[in-house]
């Protein structure tokens, strides 16, 4: 059976149980105790269906061994502070606690640094300053330094962010700046994570406009026109810079790496909503599984951290809506 048909029962129980309980409340309030109890028995069936399907949704992937990393106590900075504190110009020395993943030891070692920053410094520029002047072994990935390439994702003070868009002085307001790698991706070295898995997920949804006539792009007879409204259906979802912050934030990806994750799903929706894409139902069905859209529990953390306002959580709910509609009314051609 298609996952969306199975999930229809699940969602019917999520809506049905509260409705039945509420009707029971009204029946009780009106003194119709017998009706109330009958509704309660009906609700119990919904509760069992909800519980059993919820169990399958969360634990269908079975137990999974994750690599354990030891967290070593912090050691003192290897090299002393480069600058002494200077007054004026908003410059000040801030402390960093950097979690460095050491692959050979399978351990995270905390390293303390102090670095001078000003109002324009970002966490990335401060880390680069540490790398240039204090510790050349610190591994960081970055490229554009302006929030475009999506390379510098890391966890600053507990939140996945782009380091190049995070103001260092602001981050230091609570005291020390805490920097960690994105544990929602495999770890490579220090703050650098492995994105192979991320891009495989992305590619698996075939993120590109599919045309039935594959030769037409070489001999187009007319322009590919779209109205403003058609463009608006997918435009915000096309802002994705593949930074991977949403995967790092997603509690489902963190606990069940089989779930394809918010970025790939938002891109599946981006192309599904594109009037020029001709993959139609096939694209929808490719994510109709527990490892696809139905793995999403709608915690919404992905959308909270997305630096581009892609709102992957919304895209996934829209995909769920399309799939449920498709499961009820059948195949719909674009």
């Amino acid at each position: 059976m298609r996952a969306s048909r199975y999930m229809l029962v699940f969602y019917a129980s999520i809506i049905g149980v509260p409705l039945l309980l509420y009707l029971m409340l009204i029946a009780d309030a009106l003194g119709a105790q017998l009706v109330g109890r009958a509704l309660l028995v009906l609700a119990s069936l919904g509760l069992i269906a909800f519980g059993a399907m919820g169990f399958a949704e969360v634990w269908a992937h079975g137990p999974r061994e994750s690599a354990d990393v030891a967290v070593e106590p912090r050691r003192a900075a290897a090299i002393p502070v480069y600058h002494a504190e200077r007054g004026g110009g908003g410059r000040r020395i801030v402390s960093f606690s950097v979690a460095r993943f050491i692959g050979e030891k399978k351990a995270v070692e905390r390293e303390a640094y102090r670095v001078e920053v000003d109002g324009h410094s970002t966490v990335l520029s401060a880390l680069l300053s540490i790398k240039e002047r204090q510790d050349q072994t610190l591994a960081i990935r970055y490229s554009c330094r302006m929030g475009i390439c999506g390379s510098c994702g890391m966890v600053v003070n507990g939140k996945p962010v782009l380091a190049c868009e995070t103001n260092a002085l602001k981050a230091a307001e609570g005291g020390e700046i805490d920097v960690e790698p994105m544990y929602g991706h495999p770890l490579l070295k220090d703050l650098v994570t492995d994105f192979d898995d991320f891009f495989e997920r992305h590619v698996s949804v075939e993120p590109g406009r599919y045309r039935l006539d594959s030769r037409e792009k070489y001999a187009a007879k007319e322009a590919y026109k779209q109205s403003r409204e058609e463009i608006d259906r997918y435009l915000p979802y096309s802002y994705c810079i593949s930074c991977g912050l949403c995967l790092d934030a997603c509690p489902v990806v963190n606990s069940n790496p089989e779930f394809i994750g918010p970025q790939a799903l938002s891109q599946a929706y981006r192309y599904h909503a594109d009037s020029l894409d001709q993959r139609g139902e096939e694209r929808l069905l490719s994510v109709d599984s527990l490892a696809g859209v139905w793995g999403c529990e709608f915690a919404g953390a992905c959308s909270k951290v997305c630096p581009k306002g892609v709102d992957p959580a919304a895209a996934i709910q829209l995909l769920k809506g399309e799939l449920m509609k498709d499961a009820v009314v059948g195949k719909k051609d674009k």
Partner: protein
Amino acid sequence: MGESIDTRGGEGRIARVLGFDTGAFVHMLAYRVLIFASLATGIAILATALLFQGSLESAYIEALVLVVWALFTVEVYAVAKAAVLIASRGRFSPDLNRSFVSASGGSPWLGLVCAGAPYAATAAWVIGFAAIFAMWFL
């Protein structure tokens, strides 16, 4: 750089969101507890009614229903939010790119209704909880 190491997997990892989104953590946790509470409550009601021919007005059934009712609050909010997102094609989501939203226009009133609807549904659900608690236990 050598081999990568994957630290993902294991239910404890859901706690990672605590650093920046407490609501998401509550959502995840409540759902997991609700799964077991739903199964226990559903089975208890059915067993009491069908197997033991007992009264469904007993205090333990009512207590279980109240627990489920309280835990369902999170789901009611999430489902209402998802329904609004689907109905509005995601246009009024508070997390959508701000410049896109302001450039593409849309009625501010509709935006307010969409933002308020999940809270209204949750409020109705919470009022129901208070009412049934008062009816059964006070």
